[in-house]
């Protein structure tokens, strides 16, 4: 190999440029399948040519132009020229795409809106966005959703067929459609972020690459769309990210919010998030993401756990319960009530949140209830609740945490008996 750096450059280009190259090729070639094939051919061509000819100054532009050229060339050879003559002639004659960052961003934004189109099944939107925009493999998505790879693969195949058959346009929606379409996009991005922030399974509690991708896309959407909830979601993700390094210890075990080293929180991200929340709230309509971000900001601003403004957090949760009621936010509200008013009030609030059964399979609900029971000295009930939480937890780090709590409880109990 005459250029030993070419292999590294190619791998780096695959990591950083592949999804953007794909987004542009979908626009240029008019479909997912053609674009994926073109991208594959472009990378194959790069693997042959970069070691010989050197790494191009702009890998994105090189790959887009190689992919487009090869595809149009192949179509021509396949004698499809006649059928698509006017279109093809136009494609072939266009000067190479200028690699302006805003053009690339526009292509990614188009791709996000297409992948999150409401005509697609809700589960297909997330899978498609994760694969086409986030660059995850089918198998990684299947693991994230606790589904089989063939089931996810089929979801993606059907979604792409739907896009083709319904001729879902590859564009940012019109102003009239924009709010509803944006909601769907934000939902999908938060799903991706959460998968990266608290991977449901697997050896590591956080998968920084996924969260970083969600933040990147969230930033893109917030910058290009004038939507308060896009700002709120970005703020929420940044506030979670600001605490990432302190969420687990060296052994990968969970560190609770109250025990985290607040001096390590990323103050720049927190400051950026505060600015975004202020902008989001200035619009009048305050949505669920903005409220969740505001709650996270109260935590981020407290210098110590004991200084947390629990009254403010409970009232923000009250607003959130009105904007977007959910069992999990009812549980979080109950935990804040426990902090403000003590374990007895907390237990009552947690049990009220769990009353309709929506949290039966949620390990953190059982863990929170166990914690109240422990603090109230109702040890046998606390033990049963910890055991239930442990049964339901899937993350090894969380399992270790709950097992340690259970151990401590048993030890405290036996030392009291002695």
């Amino acid at each position, binding site marked *: 190999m005459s250029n030993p750096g070419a292999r590294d450059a190619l791998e780096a280009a695959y990591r950083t440029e592949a999804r953007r190259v794909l987004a542009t090729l979908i626009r240029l070639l008019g479909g997912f*399948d053609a674009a994926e094939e073109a991208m594959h051919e472009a990378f194959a061509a790069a693997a042959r040519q970069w070691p010989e000819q050197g790494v191009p100054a702009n890998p994105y532009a090189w790959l887009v132009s190689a992919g487009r050229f090869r595809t149009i060339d192949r179509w021509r050879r396949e004698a499809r020229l006649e059928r698509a003559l006017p279109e093809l002639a136009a494609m072939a004659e266009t000067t190479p795409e200028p690699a302006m960052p805003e053009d690339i961003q526009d292509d990614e934004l188009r791709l996000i809106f297409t992948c999150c189109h409401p005509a697609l099944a809700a589960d297909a939107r997330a899978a498609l966005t994760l694969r086409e925009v986030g660059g995850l*493999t*089918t198998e990684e998505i299947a693991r994230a959703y606790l589904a*089989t790879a*063939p089931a996810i*693969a089929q979801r993606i195949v059907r979604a792409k067929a739907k896009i083709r058959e319904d001729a879902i346009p590859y564009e940012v929606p019109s102003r009239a459609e924009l709010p509803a379409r944006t909601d769907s996009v934000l939902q999908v991005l938060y799903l991706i972020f959460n998968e990266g922030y608290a991977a449901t399974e697997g050896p590591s509690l956080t998968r920084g690459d996924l969260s970083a991708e969600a933040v990147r896309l969230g930033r893109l959407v917030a910058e290009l769309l004038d939507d308060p909830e896009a700002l709120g979601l970005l703020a929420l993700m940044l506030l979670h990210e600001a605490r990432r390094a302190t969420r687990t210890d060296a052994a990968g075990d969970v560190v609770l919010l109250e025990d985290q080293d607040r001096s390590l929180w990323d103050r720049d991200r927190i400051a950026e998030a505060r600015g975004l929340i202020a902008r989001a709230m200035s619009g009048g309509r305050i949505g669920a993401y903005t409220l969740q971000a505001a709650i996270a900001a109260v935590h981020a601003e407290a210098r110590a756990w004991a200084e947390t403004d629990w009254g403010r957090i409970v009232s923000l949760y009250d607003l959130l319960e009105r904007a977007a009621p959910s069992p999990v936010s009812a549980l979080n509200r109950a935990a804040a009530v426990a902090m403000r008013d003590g374990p007895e009030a907390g237990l009552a609030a947690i049990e009220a949140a769990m009353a309709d059964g929506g949290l039966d399979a949620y390990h953190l609900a059982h863990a929170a209830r166990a914690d109240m029971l422990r603090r109230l000295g109702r040890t046998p009930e606390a033990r049963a609740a910890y055991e239930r939480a442990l049964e339901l937890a899937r993350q090894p780090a969380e399992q270790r945490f709950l097992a340690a709590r259970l151990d401590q409880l048993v030890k405290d109990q036996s030392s009291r008996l002695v």
Partner: protein
Amino acid sequence: MQYVCLIYFDPKTVFNGSAESNAVLGAVGPNNEAMRASGHMVSSEALTLPHEAITVRVRDGKVSTTDGPFMETREVLGGFVLIEARDLNEAVQVASAIPFAKLGSVEVRPVVDFSKPRPQL
């Protein structure tokens, strides 16, 4: 001449953890070595269980997929292609371009990743 030896088994007999099945699984590696040493081995791959399979057909230019290995009863194994793909969807895309997908069906099944634990059935 080259010959393909197709291996069929009931997964419950092979992965039930019995001494007999473990002995068989343990003998596969040494036998592969022996076939390689004697020059008979061209290549071999283990396949994951059928629930990881997806079957691809192309009819009227449209790709359809089904979970699992659901061949028509009249269909027989006619050949195989070992491909390298980024993920299962890319594999499906490659499989859908195999001309036989228009007449029959192409079952796509991952080869076994031996860094993962063996299934327990």
